[in-house]
């Protein structure tokens, strides 16, 4: 009964939504004066970042990204608060086999370097702080899985997290002081498609990378600690 009602209800909603969205034709440039095309035209000359998505995420709509970092931070904080003081359980997790352990040892630094590469080159190639941070966290996950005794130091993690987050805001405040608006790009833009270009964009993305990496690592560690 409940299922039937749900199906009918969803059917009606789905029909109307789909009918509405079919009015917006797929694959055609619809709004020619939209902000998207302005970003494409201005992105490279005005921000110096070859990757226009990055220049939107970090510069044009950088304020959203600050909010987004905060959302992740909130989730990590909330999880820490909710799982607080669970007595650390005896870990009966098995150590992985020797091959996995050896493999993890070799892979771990490579994964970290890959993550760092992704967020340092965020303004040139696909990727950036969020992707790089997630890759770094998965490197730590590999170590958690392979070695039962592997621990990350929580003090270090929370310091990295704090410093990276406040660096983001401080870069923004620099913009406010020297460029008259929060998050303004006050550094020289440099030559497009080189590592040292796009002013503050790579700096912000590196801060985001550290923040996301440490947050996700901390989040995984918090959750894994509760597993018997």
């Amino acid at each position: 009964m409940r299922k039937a009602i749900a199906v009918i209800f969803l059917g009606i909603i789905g029909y109307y939504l789909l009918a509405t969205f079919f009015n917006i034709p797929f694959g055609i440039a619809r709004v020619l004066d939209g902000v998207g095309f302005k970003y494409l035209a201005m992105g490279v000359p005005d921000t110096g970042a070859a990757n226009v998505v990055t220049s939107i995420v970090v510069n044009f709509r950088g304020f959203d990204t600050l909010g987004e970092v905060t959302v992740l931070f909130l989730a990590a904080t909330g999880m820490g608060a909710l799982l607080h003081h669970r007595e650390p359980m005896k870990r009966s997790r098995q150590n992985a086999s020797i091959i996995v352990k050896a493999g993890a040892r070799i892979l771990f630094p490579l994964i970290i370097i890959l993550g760092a590469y992704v967020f340092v080159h965020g303004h040139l190639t696909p990727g950036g702080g969020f992707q790089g941070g997630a890759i770094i966290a998965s490197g730590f996950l590999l170590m958690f899985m392979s070695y039962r005794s592997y621990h990350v130091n929580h003090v270090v993690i929370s310091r990295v997290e704090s410093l990276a987050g406040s660096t983001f805001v401080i870069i923004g405040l620099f913009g406010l002081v020297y460029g008259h608006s929060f998050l303004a790009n006050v550094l020289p833009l440099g030559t497009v498609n080189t590592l040292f270009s796009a002013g503050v964009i790579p700096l912000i993305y590196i801060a985001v990378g550290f923040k996301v990496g440490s947050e996700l690592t901390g989040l995984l560690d918090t959750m894994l600690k509760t597993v018997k």
Partner: protein
Amino acid sequence: MIYYVAAFSLILIGAYAVLVKKNMIKIVLGLSLIDSGVNILLVALGYINGKTAPIFSNPSLKAEGMVDPVPQALVLTAIVIGVAVTALALTIVIRLHDHHKTLDISKIRELKW
């Protein structure tokens, strides 16, 4: 067009799970299916036939030949927010399981729904 259909299938299947399923992990899975659906829809809205990704990786690329980058930037934000909500939801699920020793939401309802 097929992207729209795929996106809406995900949204509806996810919403069905949220409305009908009793298992809390299934409900959270439903939420993440909905998220994926909305993300596909947003990116599909920015796609333009025959145009390339909005990255000027070599000088021959022209702004006229690129897809709309804004939906992509928005979806980046939406994905991160989605994983944050999922993680928090699962933490609450863990707490509820600690208290009630069940994942079945219909057995938990002590408050009036």
